[in-house]
């Protein structure tokens, strides 16, 4: 058994233990069920239809004013006419948080099983933590992270993100962080990545919020060869234009290099839009979901760009 498998088993064991330990003390929060039909165009040009259904369950328990427990479970599955198999995405996570006047500590563990046309059957388990030291208008944080993936390529990733968040005047918040990570693969190879990031959030007095983030990512192998390097900028916007309507837009633009000093490798644009419309006169809550996404890539070696897109229409009930 190699080092990756050993660490992976430990993470899975801790995840199950964490789940069993926390589950009895949680109470039902919210259950959502939904279904949708999606039409996707893959990068190879194939168009597939993807009807799916899902169940999302949230549980919570506020043990005291300073200690709270949360759990989320989600199961999504359907039929993919392209791969002619059942795609699924099943996950569960638990978290506990403890807060005081000048500190915040959180621990979260989760499991996820997924199979889609571009992610063959794989199982993921993770443990993450958040340790924050809180001051009047700023905080310092440290986020250790451990994740193991069992699938076509087994891997274990360890990361430690550190940074600072600050309130920048009324409704503005910023954060600066640095996240080094180390990934071991089952073939014995390993990869190091460095990811500094700058984030700016705007929370005005109107029902609108935006998040703008940008960063740089560098991945290199054990022998210090650079595997890839990129700079990216992303923007997320959530808007409530009128009653029972929430519009979400998430766009990322990434410029990928082999290395900054070498030739550029490609450019990626990834954008997703979702509109949720609540149905009036419905006992409880029922929303119609309209969504779409577009991803476009161009490589320097191959001038022809490739793209993929999807559109989806669905409905979700909150029970």
């Amino acid at each position, binding site marked *: 058994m190699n080092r990756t498998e050993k660490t992976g088993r430990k993470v899975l064991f801790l995840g199950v233990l964490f789940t069993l330990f926390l589950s009895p003390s949680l109470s039902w929060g919210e259950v959502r069920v939904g279904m949708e039909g999606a039409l996707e165009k893959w990068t190879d040009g194939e168009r597939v239809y993807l009807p799916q259904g899902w169940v999302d369950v949230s549980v919570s328990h506020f043990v005291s*004013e300073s200690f*709270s427990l949360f759990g989320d479970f989600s199961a999504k599955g359907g039929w993919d006419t392209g791969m002619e198999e059942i795609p699924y995405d099943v996950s569960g996570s638990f978290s506990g948080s403890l807060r005081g006047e000048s500190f*915040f500590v959180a621990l979260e563990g989760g499991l996820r099983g997924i199979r889609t046309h571009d992610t063959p059957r794989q199982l993921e388990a993770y443990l993450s933590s958040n340790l924050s030291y809180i001051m009047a208008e700023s905080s310092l944080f440290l986020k250790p992270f451990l994740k193991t993936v069992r699938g076509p390529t087994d891997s274990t990733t360890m990361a430690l993100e550190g940074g600072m968040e600050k309130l920048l005047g*009324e409704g503005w918040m910023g954060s600066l962080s640095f996240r080094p990570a180390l990934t071991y693969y089952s073939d014995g190879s390993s990869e190091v990545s460095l990811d500094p990031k700058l984030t700016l959030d705007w929370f005005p*007095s109107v029902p609108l919020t935006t998040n703008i983030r940008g960063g740089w990512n560098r991945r290199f192998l054990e022998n210090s060869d650079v595997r890839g390097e990129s700079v990216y900028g992303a923007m997320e916007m959530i808007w409530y234009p009128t009653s029972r309507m929430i519009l979400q837009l998430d766009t990322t633009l990434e410029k990928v290099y082999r290395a900054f000093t070498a030739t550029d490798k490609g450019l990626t644009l990834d954008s997703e839009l979702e509109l949720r419309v609540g149905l009036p006169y419905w006992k409880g809550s029922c929303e119609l979901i309209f969504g779409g996404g577009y991803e476009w890539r161009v490589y320097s070696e191959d001038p022809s760009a490739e793209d993929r897109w999807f559109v989806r229409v669905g409905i979700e009930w909150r029970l």
Partner: protein
Amino acid sequence: MGALRTNLLVAGLMVFFLVVPLPQVFSQEVTPDTVRAWLHTEPMATPYQDLAPSIIQVFEAARSDGLPLELLFDKLKEGAAKKVPSGRLKPALEGELNRLLQVRKVLQEGFGKDVTKDPFFLQGMKVGSLALRSGFPEEGLRIVCTPSMGLEKMVSLLPPLAEMHRIETLPLQPLSSFVQALSASPIPPSQYGTFVSLYLKATAGRIPPQDTLRIMTDVLKAGGGILQIERELARRSRK
């Protein structure tokens, strides 16, 4: 489309009253005679000449109930500017009159009979009426009108709460705890509007409203502020 226009108007007025102190808006006392003169001289009021006596009756009724007429007069001008059909103008004014009576009752129960002498009384009446009109429950208004909150803070807090209630219905019990925690926190009233976008982000992140309010309350009670609330809500959101 009508409902959309009403929602946008209410939201717009709420934002307006968040940033413009009402004493600047109402500088002159309004009497039924002021209204009568306006109806006879204002070109916008021409379509409502036949209604003038019954409109004046509404203002007389408001005066006999001891209500300040400025807010009702504002409503009349708003209706005329929007060219509301004459058949709908009087019911709209009567509706506003009833809401103002309802709000004054809640304000007096919450802050005492002398609240009518408070410099923020008119502003409190206006935001209270707008909140009720947008669907905010009277019970919610009672929760916000407490001596520990005070009228000045209530005027700043009610429009964001009404906006949050429009996004996703606020459960009353957790709302009460949140209002108490906020009234004791050092967060200045000028930052209360931020709770609207924080609540929107939490709703979009699938956090149940009772959990959102509970997290906000617990963070405030622990001495935290907007930054900590945002980070804890972001952590709780479904990715």
